[in-house]
């Protein structure tokens, strides 16, 4: 029905009604939606936090399990990775691709350290001698804490992992020459996502970990 002329045209960002790029609006909408994902998970955790099926001798004091020093460390690492991310976005806006590459690399490494800490934490909890916390039980008896804890922090970990994969994609692009200053908006969207995932952890850390020491 239609005849066209040249194919494979130079892609240029179209002008938008608000002046904000389409991808950025999309990312903000997604993050708004993601707030509700984590909101649901966090409320599930808060509702179930103190509920134990077998009250009494098997009372779960999660402080016996938590390694707050390790989690504080990984929290610090994740927050620091946000700095790298911000620097990467700033660098690509200025057209400094070498600096962008290094900052992306730093973000990936710090994100990787956070994930490694989480993997260590999960295996440690599941195999803690005499204190095994699994998805469905604590010390071999049915319990809900493991269900909400692993699903909430695991969903967050999955978000971090997807972010790391996304950043690795950009890192590869920076070597193959597919990354240029015109991609700044894409890296910025990646940064928005990364900062959001960090902010969610800023909520999860006090609500899931620190609160156990207070109330």
């Amino acid at each position: 029905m239609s005849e066209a002329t040249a194919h494979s045209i130079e892609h240029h960002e179209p002008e938008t009604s608000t002046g904000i790029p389409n991808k950025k609006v999309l990312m903000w909408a997604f993050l708004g939606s993601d707030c509700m994902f984590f909101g649901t998970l966090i409320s599930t955790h808060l509702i179930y936090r103190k509920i134990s099926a077998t009250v009494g001798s098997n009372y779960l004091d999660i402080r016996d399990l938590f390694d707050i020093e390790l989690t504080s460390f990984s929290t610090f690492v994740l927050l620091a990775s946000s700095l790298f991310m911000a620097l990467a976005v700033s660098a690509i806006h200025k057209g400094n691709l070498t600096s962008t590459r290094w900052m992306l690399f730093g973000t990936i490494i710090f994100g990787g350290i956070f994930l490694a800490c989480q993997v260590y934490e999960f295996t440690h909890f599941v195999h803690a001698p005499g204190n095994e916390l699994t998805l469905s039980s604590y010390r071999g008896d049915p319990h809900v804490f493991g269900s909400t804890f692993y699903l909430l922090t695991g969903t967050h970990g999955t978000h971090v992992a997807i972010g790391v994969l996304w950043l690795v994609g950009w890192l590869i692009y920076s070597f193959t020459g597919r990354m240029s200053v015109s991609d700044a908006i894409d890296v910025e969207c990646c940064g928005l996502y990364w900062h959001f995932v960090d902010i969610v952890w800023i909520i999860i850390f006090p609500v899931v970990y620190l609160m156990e020491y207070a109330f």
Partner: protein
Amino acid sequence: MATESIDYASPETKSKVETKVFPRPGQHVTGIVDWLTTIDHKKIGLLYGLTALFFLLLGGIEALLIRSQLWSHNMEILTNRQYNQMFTMHGTTMVFLVIMPLSAAFFNFIMPLQIGARDVAFPRMNTLSLWCFFAGGITLNLSWFFTGGAPAIGWFGYAPLTDTRFAEVMGDMGPDFWVFSLQILGIASLLASFNFITTIINMRAPGMTMMRLPVFTWMTLIVSFLIILAFPAITIALAELMFDRTYGTNFFDFLEGGKPHLWQHLFWIFGHPEVYILILPAMGIVSEIIPVFSRKPLFGYGLIIFSGAIIGFMGFAVWSHHMFTTGMGVVATSAFSILTMLIAIPTGIKIFNWIGTMWGGRIRFDTPMLFALGFITMFMIGGFTGIMHSSVPIDAQHQDSYFVVAHFHYVLIGGALFGLFAGFYFWLPKMSGRLMNEKLGKLVFTLMFIGFNVTFFPMHYLGMIGQPRRTHSYNEGHGFEAWNQIATIGAFVLGIGIAIGIYQFVSSFFNKKLKPAGKNPWDARTIEWTLSSPVKEYNFARTPIIKSRDQAWENNYGPKEKHAQQEALGDHGVHMPDHSWCPLVTALGLFVMVIGLLFRQTIEFAELFIATPYEIAIAGGSLFVLGIVMWALEGPGGYHLFPKETEE
């Protein structure tokens, strides 16, 4: 067609070598490949509509089986388990596979035309949401063929009905199919909504300010926000349920510390906004139709939009009125009761605005207008019973009775479906290029209106005298028989009406005897009516510069300074996106992965070992990732068209 309008002069564009994983279909593809790889919002809209109409027939057959079973006392057309499967599949199908995608069909087809855009913001993502919807619909209905058959848990899937230990059939897979299909359908809805939000916020034609947007586009925007904020709740609830069923977690397992009550909260935090997700598009459609057929501008445009937004906002604060009888305590029930009553205010405002629009107008009773009027009257009856239910003591009396069934069918058929049918009769000439037979349309309306009322009005009475819903039979001596028989007869009349309507919609694309529609058969007001019917692939030859709210009307009857102007065509002409296989591959990967995930034993065919479920899941996951990677590598692509100025 459009060929003569194309300027063949080659523009000066650089050709760039692309990474080709496998060749991308060009713009010249035709036939099946065209439909499988299309990223044109109009074709996507048509595919949504056609598939949803098919599911409407399927869900309708399920409804007729339910009605046949209730014809008289102790009927044995369906066993109790089959009956449970029928109402589960009927509810799930009608909500997720009929009303939502029918709305999505109009969002896709009409909304970009109403704002003067060439396509949506992310055309390939739009295709992905279409194929995800397909995959979800297929997954749900595949459940009939595996252990346990279709889910028998209700569309609400209350715990502990979904608990594996309480399954009627050992290894019942129905709830697994239900969980996974709803997850895929959720992905489809979320992707589509992100797309529509970005499109409406960012891709309006010059001069198309937010307060000049047609009401239907406004409702699209509000519904999209409702979807992105409400669906996460059910996504997480379903994920928790999936963990419960597959990995033995205890979220909703009351034997091991979980609380079934939580499922109800999570489900209805999604479920109540979902009600507005279903009804607001129909309200948008009706707000477009009534001014056109009353020959008057819409009365109280700002108020209609504001009350739509308020309805959407308050929709998040009333979910617990579905749970008044669960024992939440006096404070919670009172608060939710008051908030529920408050929602009647913005709804009432809308209805008075529609009446105000018609007041003193020169009303034409064409089929779209008849359906719109049917919408207003029937939705009002559903609304009145809704206000009754907001009162806690009345709700406690009506809970789980046929009165509730009558209430929500008045809202969802008399409301949503009548509104959507009005939309079909209004906009199909724009989609197919042909006018439909008015007499047949009026016959469809008459059959549907009478059949609908004969079916559902008696249910109010049946509920009041105590017939429980979700119960597959009743004993002699309650006096239920007569009204049930009337309802069943009505249901068949309604079914015939809908079937003729669907036949009329589909045949209008093929029946060459029908009169051509021309640009503006209804003398309508919004800018999609300035385009030729059917709409050209590039939508607008020149981007219009909008001067007023009812632009098409002003173009025809308004003063010169209010006529729309046209933007000059740039050197690059109209940028059209390329076809792509990637969305289809990605959705296919997702489908295969889900099928792998929901099986727990090895898959055999005629005693021949085929694969373990994990192998299938990994294969599907790899295909999914491959689709995304190819998607990223092929880039946006595209080509340029140079339509002549005279073309619209």
